[in-house]
């Protein structure tokens, strides 16, 4: 069966960090000019994950539902910002941030809550050991799908405005005029999760399953967990991207079905 859990020492982390430094040096030598971003991203993930470890430790200890809600709120808020900042042509004002964030609330948060309440059923049902990691997995993945879908919609609507207006002029409804672009955006948002489900277990050992196995869990149990997560992520991405694309494409037209690209920037 599975071996014992091996804790990591700071020295172990240092070895991995050295490898990262090596790639940074490579980038500098080849003039890829990503070494700065690589370094900042590495520093950010170090600080963020260490902090998360500490925070989760105290949240697990206190079990306070208020703290859990606060934590979920912060995670959602940051995910919303990330999805917003990854778009080239995004909606102006609160619509830009709100559309992605609301879609993640509808998909990730609700699905994460449902899966602990209905599927896992820990006591209490909002036990942070289940809820927070699940939400993190959901948010991290739906965020990508939603950002790609909204980015595609914004860029396509911008560059193909002539085609959209040509259909409006001929008396098509706003929905018909942007239908092709909307479908394309949704497809673009869903392709990453479809691909990762296709190769799961053949090429990639998904992150969560890897973690469970490294932590000494039984591989078959880990596979079941991973399968559940994949399904939840796919459902959440589909739900979230659909809602984001619908809200955003609705916002691209006004009450007289005019294409309003002035609402993008």
């Amino acid at each position, binding site marked *: 069966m599975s071996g014992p859990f091996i804790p990591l020492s700071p020295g172990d982390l240092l070895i991995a960090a050295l490898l990262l430094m090596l790639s940074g040096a490579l980038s500098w030598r080849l003039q890829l000019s990503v070494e700065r971003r690589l370094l900042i991203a590495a520093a950010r993930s170090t600080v963020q994950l260490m902090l998360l470890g500490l925070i989760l430790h105290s949240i697990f200890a206190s079990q306070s539902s208020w703290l859990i809600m606060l934590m979920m709120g912060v995670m959602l808020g940051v995910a919303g910002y990330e999805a917003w900042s990854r778009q080239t042509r995004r909606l102006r004002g609160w619509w830009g941030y709100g559309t992605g964030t609301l879609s993640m609330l509808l998909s990730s948060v609700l699905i994460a809550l449902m899966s602990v309440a209905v599927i896992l059923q820990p006591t209490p049902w909002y036990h942070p050991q289940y809820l927070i990691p699940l939400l993190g997995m959901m948010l991290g993945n739906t965020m990508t799908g939603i950002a790609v879908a909204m980015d595609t919609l914004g860029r396509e609507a911008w560059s*193909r405005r*002539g*085609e*959209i*207006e*040509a*259909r*409006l*002029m*001929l*008396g*098509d*409804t*706003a929905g018909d005029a942007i239908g*092709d672009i909307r479908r394309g955006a949704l497809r673009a948002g869903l392709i990453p999760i479809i691909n990762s489900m296709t190769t799961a277990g053949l090429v990639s050992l998904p992150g969560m399953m890897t973690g469970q196995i490294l932590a000494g869990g039984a591989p078959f149990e880990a596979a079941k967990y991973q399968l559940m997560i994949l399904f939840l992520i796919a459902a959440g991405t589909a739900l979230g991207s659909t809602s984001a694309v619908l809200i955003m494409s609705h916002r691209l037209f*006004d009450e*007289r*079905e*005019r*294409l309003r690209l002035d609402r993008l920037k």
Partner: protein
Amino acid sequence: MGLRVNGLQRPGLKPATFELASGKTLCIHGASGSGKTLLLRAIADLDPNRGQVSLDGQARAGMAAHAWRRQVMYLPPEPHWWADRVAPHANHWPDSLLQALGFDTTVLDWEISQLSSGERQRLALIRVLARSPRALLLDEPTANLDPDNSLAAEGLIADHQRQHHSAIIWVSHDPVQRARVADRTLEMVDGTLR
């Protein structure tokens, strides 16, 4: 009866008020950038605007925007195409329309990118007329056509007008063409119709 425009305005367009009876053609000319296109787009409700427009007594504000545009159709000077080939843009184009402008049904298989600007303009006219709008807003519909094709297009538009008793607003730079097709002529100067 006909097209009635009352106080129609938007940035770049001073309030415009006029009436155009069914079956009549109003020609508009004026320097480029004077606001002719803005006026036609505003009538078709393609850009935010203020004012009242009605067709045969039916107010624009009282119907859905797409229903309005299905009846009052705008033909831009450089029409866009949303598919690679002609066919997806053609919902029941009658052979008579195709033949009148020198095409046959094989044109449906053609690629848009292979068409000349004149061919595109003629096909765009067919695309509009085939949908039988009750009023036409034509923005230099023959600008890219040679004289023969221009006359053929004018004839086709005249046929449509007789058949549907359409009110037509026609932007044209060509004084000879205006003399042929206009019942009335107005000039656009710095956003003012006069």
